[in-house]
């Protein structure tokens, strides 16, 4: 037992938890922005892959790290725009379009990678983001090493949560986004554009998702592998429900998942000899299902989620 407490009390553990959570934070906030406007974006898994590939390749071609972040965001926006056009003005099934975007984005990323690097045996590495010290803050006890000895992308993720919460709840734009996800005719009758708001939200949300992917190749690792997204996008979709479409709860959900992931890695080394490692690998997923079961029934769904809007139709 004391081993478990040792793990939970170590600063190292919490630092890792936040690091592991970072792509999920990007992803869940992206999914939340889309869904708040009424569009489910199941393209997320593919957009993660596209962001991971595009960001990494831009850096590898010499764009610089922040240039890579920008390219990743643009790649996400591109696939988001495809999804938005199919589902918003054309009103196609959001599920089908989303799965299609995931398949397309994933395949296109792999294809581009293979075409650009036809015969490399081990993936080329880039100089990835490094943990930075924020003068003053990093020296704070406990909080310092957890929050401020991270890579810039983790800090960016936290900033984005705050900005999203501010925009959603404090600005006229956020008000319109929340309204369009609940009752688009309320938005139209007040003279705003339903399509404009929804397409905008999906494009911005998708860029955020792509940043989650970019974190994997540019911060967590320094190379692109096939299958490296590994279901993180799907987890974000579940976390959005868990968070009841609220940015603060989304952050907590992502952190919890990250913490369990970090926990299971450490637990494996502690008592992995007795219980097979796969059990620990399952742990975060089982817990996220359990959390969903507990929370989802009371979840405050955006009422117009999945419902296409056609002008002039009652």
């Amino acid at each position, binding site marked *: 037992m004391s081993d478990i407490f040792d793990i939970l009390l170590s600063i190292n553990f919490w630092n890792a938890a936040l690091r592991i959570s970072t792509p999920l934070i990007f992803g869940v906030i992206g999914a939340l922005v889309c869904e708040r406007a009424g569009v489910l974006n199941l393209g997320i898994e593919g957009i993660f892959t596209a962001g991971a590939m595009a960001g990494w390749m831009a850096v590898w071609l010499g764009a610089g790290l922040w240039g890579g972040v920008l390219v990743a965001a643009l790649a996400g926006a591109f696939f988001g725009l495809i999804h938005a056009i199919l589902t918003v003005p054309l009103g196609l099934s959001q599920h089908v379009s989303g799965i299609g975007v995931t398949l397309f984005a994933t395949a296109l990323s792999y294809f581009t990678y293979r075409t650009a690097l036809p015969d490399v045996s081990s993936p080329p590495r880039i100089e990835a983001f490094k943990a930075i010290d924020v003068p003053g803050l990093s020296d704070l006890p406990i909080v310092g090493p957890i929050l401020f000895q991270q890579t810039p992308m983790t800090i960016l993720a936290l900033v984005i949560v705050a900005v999203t919460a501010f925009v959603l709840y*404090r*600005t*006229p*734009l956020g*008000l*319109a986004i*929340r*309204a369009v*996800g*609940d*009752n688009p*005719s*309320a*938005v*139209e*009758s*007040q*003279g*705003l554009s339903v399509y404009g708001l929804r397409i905008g939200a999906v494009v911005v949300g998708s860029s955020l998702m792509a940043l989650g992917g970019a974190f994997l190749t540019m911060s967590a690792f320094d190379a692109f592998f096939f299958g490296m997204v590994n279901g993180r996008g799907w987890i974000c979709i579940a976390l959005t429900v868990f968070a009841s479409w609220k940015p603060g709860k989304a952050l907590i959900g992502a952190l919890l998942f990250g913490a369990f992931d970090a926990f299971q890695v450490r637990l494996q080394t502690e008592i992995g000899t007795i219980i097979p490692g796969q059990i620990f690998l399952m742990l975060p997923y089982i817990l996220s299902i359990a959390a969903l079961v507990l929370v989802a029934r009371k979840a*405050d769904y*955006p*009422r117009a989620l999945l419902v296409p809007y056609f*002008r*002039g139709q*009652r």
Partner: protein
Amino acid sequence: MNANPNDAPLVLKLDKITKRFGALTANGDVSLDLRQGEILALLGENGAGKTTLMNILFGHYVADEGTVEVPGTDGSLQQLEPGSPNAALEAGIGMVHQHFTLAENLSALENILLGTEALTSFKSSRAKARQKLESLMERSGLSVDLNARISDLSVGEKQRVEILKALYRDARVLVLDEPTAVLTPQESESLFSTLQKLASEGLGIIFISHKLDEVLSASHRIAVLRGGRKVSDQPTEGCNKRQLAELMVGKTVPESNRDSKEAGAPLFVLQNVSTGQGRDAITNIDLELLSGEILGIAGVSGNGQGTLAKLISGLATPQSGSIVLNGAPLTTASARQMIDAGIARIPEDRHKDGIVGPMTVAENLAIETIRKPENHRFGFLKFGAIAERAREAITSYDIRCQGDKAPARLLSGGNIQKIVLARTLDASPVVVLAAQPSRGLDVGATADVHRRLLEARARGAGVILISEDLDELMRLSDRIAVIHRGVLSEPEKTESVDRGTLGLRMAGQSKEQAA
């Protein structure tokens, strides 16, 4: 009505508006004007083109011909940009739709603010908005808790938020589409007194309705639309109900009245039936329906008649008591067994329980008899026969639709009710359960429903008519019982029932108190 503002300036002018949907002309050459401080009632049956006209005004549709004109800054009339809700809002036209356009997850204040501030702005000045609204509410008498979430508000309160939305944008013209359809009588009354007040302050108001009483009592002028054309436009003074009804329907509405006729033997008996506790529960109900009679059940919604209807249609099972049809027990029968036994159900919520919206008219007509041999062979549906019978029903019941393959959800309420009537009554049922059969229907469709119910009675069927409408009950029923808090009174001959007393008893007074 007095103070007819005949010489006040025009605030709105619709000039020769024509709008076609395919072969259907929804509006043909309609001209309409509105003066400052005037209340104009736009009267017409469902499908007469009232809502289309208002949607053109508000920019939801673009007219094929004709223009909408509003006074510009210099006071002269100028054409409004067609197809732009934003232009309509800018021009001071506010619209309260029949189906509210409110986001339920936001507060009243947020709904009112929506779209009034630039989307690029980084802050929202709620304090100032709140101040303006407080004074608006005081002046108009429309009080709403601005912080309340819309989903927590009652229908009447939501409507007030809608009106405030328009007033907050300094509307000069307020359009209300069937504003009383969802209100209680008290709420309607208070709405109309608010509208009077707003009009006296100079707001021009158009309200759409098909209810003659309210049109006569609350407007300065009445315009009647029929089949997409304006057939009359005159001051309310000098109009009467009969004349308006004729203008609206285009022919004298034949009022169906029941002939006197001896009822037959007991047909359908509920004995000491109770369900559990809770809202809309019923306790110890005894009911004996004779063949060839219409038994009216009067009551305010939520007093147990919903549960009673569910029991009779087999959608719920009583906790105690028995249900017997012609000597055969049906206490625990399922919905299908009830239908097979000859009990027809006209459900209260026809959109939700009466039809399957995305399915076609033909499919909806066949849905209850799908297992009958005439509808299938070797387990496969006989689409030809189903369509054939649907076309017959469309003709004989005058269901206005684009054919038997049209999705049922596209039909108007009256025509949906005709589908339900055709489906249930064509099978010559022994018992007909009609729950609020004419609620929300216009004069023509209501007359149709009444005629069909009387036909069933003449045929010898027993009809249970659950309604809140005293006129309907008094005219159709042979006997009337009152349901209040789940208790059903002893039915009485309609001739011996007094209207006023009936109203009081629906409100919960005992027979002795009410008399």
